[in-house]
């Protein structure tokens, strides 16, 4: 399988941007789920977000691309605040990968990638197919282009979902427990694809329960609990010398 790093003709490059979240607050009714989250990811770096269930990790990702509108705080992409711009346009600049893949089951693998390219990027049908095939090649699924998502393994589906997001040329990628729904033997393929993407210089926020991945790939790990980033730092420091009791307790449970 060709990796993203060692196949880089013009079409596979991307322009990664920095991402800064500051003071993000978000409530569902009276349930304050995010209570002032700060997270800075320099361009080309990877931040892993870890934390117990219900701490607000998924909500934070959805607030980042404004699938959920933050109540307070600021989001800066490439140094510019994006809260006042059109959210549909913001989402075109941020790719997102979900736990359950969310491929479009009524479309083929190729069409899953070409549809947004044609409808949103306004590529010609030929241009969209060419761009989609490049991405499929990259994730090692070129030969599956005519298959329906339902006929692929979970790992293959997730790689298609990653290809679909990358085809849009995002400046940042968000991953929400991308491997949690996968059978154990399929996890590795998806994680190594994500690691390739990180080393190719994509800006990424990765919500994950894979502590090994966080340790090896992340430039920065942020531990979230009850709607705030309790502790953040380099993985080595965080995993070996956690300061806050809550993180120590969390790590003792998951490691």
């Amino acid at each position, binding site marked *: 399988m060709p990796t993203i790093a060692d196949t880089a003709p013009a079409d596979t490059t991307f322009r990664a941007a920095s991402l800064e979240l500051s003071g993000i607050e978000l409530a569902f009714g009276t349930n304050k789920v995010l209570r002032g989250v700060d997270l800075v990811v320099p361009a080309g770096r990877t931040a892993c977000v870890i934390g117990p269930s219900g701490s607000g990790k998924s909500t934070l990702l959805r607030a980042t691309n404004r699938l959920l509108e933050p109540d307070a705080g600021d989001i800066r992409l490439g140094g510019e605040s994006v809260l006042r711009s059109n959210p*549909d346009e913001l989402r075109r600049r941020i790719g*997102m990968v979900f736990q359950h893949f*969310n491929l*479009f089951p009524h479309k083929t693998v190729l069409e899953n990638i070409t549809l*947004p390219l044609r409808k*949103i990027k306004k590529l010609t049908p030929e241009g969209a197919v060419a761009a989609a095939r490049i991405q499929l090649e990259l994730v090692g699924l070129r030969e599956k282009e005519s298959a329906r998502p339902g006929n692929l393994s979970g790992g293959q589906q997730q790689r298609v979902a990653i290809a*679909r997001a990358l085809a849009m040329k995002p400046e940042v990628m968000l991953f929400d427990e991308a491997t949690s729904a996968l059978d154990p033997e399929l996890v590795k393929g998806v994680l190594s694809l994500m690691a390739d993407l990180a080393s190719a210089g994509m800006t990424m926020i990765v919500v994950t329960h894979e502590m090994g991945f966080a340790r090896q790939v992340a430039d920065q790990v942020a531990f979230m609990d009850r709607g705030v980033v309790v502790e953040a730092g380099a993985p080595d420091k965080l995993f070996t010398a956690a300061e806050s009791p809550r993180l120590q307790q969390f790590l003792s449970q998951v490691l």
Partner: protein
Amino acid sequence: MDIWSTLSDTFLDWESMKAVLPEMLKVGLVNTLILAAASVVLGTVLGMVVAVMGLSRRRWLRWPAKIYTDIFRGLPAILTILLIGQGLSPITRHWWGPNPYPLGILALSLIAAAYIGEIFRSGIQSVEKGQLEAARALGFTYTSGMWLIVIPQGVRRVLPALVNQFIALVKESSLVYFLGLLASQRELFRIGQDAAATNGNLSPLLLAGIFYLIITVPLTHLVNYFDKRLREGRPTAELEVEELVHADHR
């Protein structure tokens, strides 16, 4: 008394069937098909409008859809057809004369739209939330995500129920009979009934019944076919225009 010959005199009088057959084909079948096809098209379009309104995030769109559905599902079809077909005809006769078809089609479509709207709505609602979320995460607007991603999947899931509704429409088209039809406007049921009265036996009605079955039984099989495909998890994608267009480009 010979039961068999009594029954066969009533139902199997070949002569009266043969006599009515040409009219049944040229007038009755054609008119039934026109009524049913027009109401299927109009009812489906209106039904989609009702469904989309009913799913809207705006209350002032949701409520009219709900009230509409309650009314047209709650009334007997014959009552709606008479109210609309007779009630509006003093107004519409200026446009197309005393022809009961346009209003009959309108009434049938309005009734069908209430049922079809509910069918579409349940189908669309059954599509996983993640589908719209993924579409929007890619940059689709809410509206185009609904129309390109969610609604096509929802419609596919309810194709069996939809075709069942079409079958009901074919049968209900006979109700326009109550609006009073000129000789050339009679559909299958009315022609069967007239001939039955003239001949003093029910054979022409039986013939009309056979014609209904010729239309509805294939539709029933279509329902089963869609059902089977859905259960096997194979999407009935070939039906979508968008995809046919797309295939041309390959």
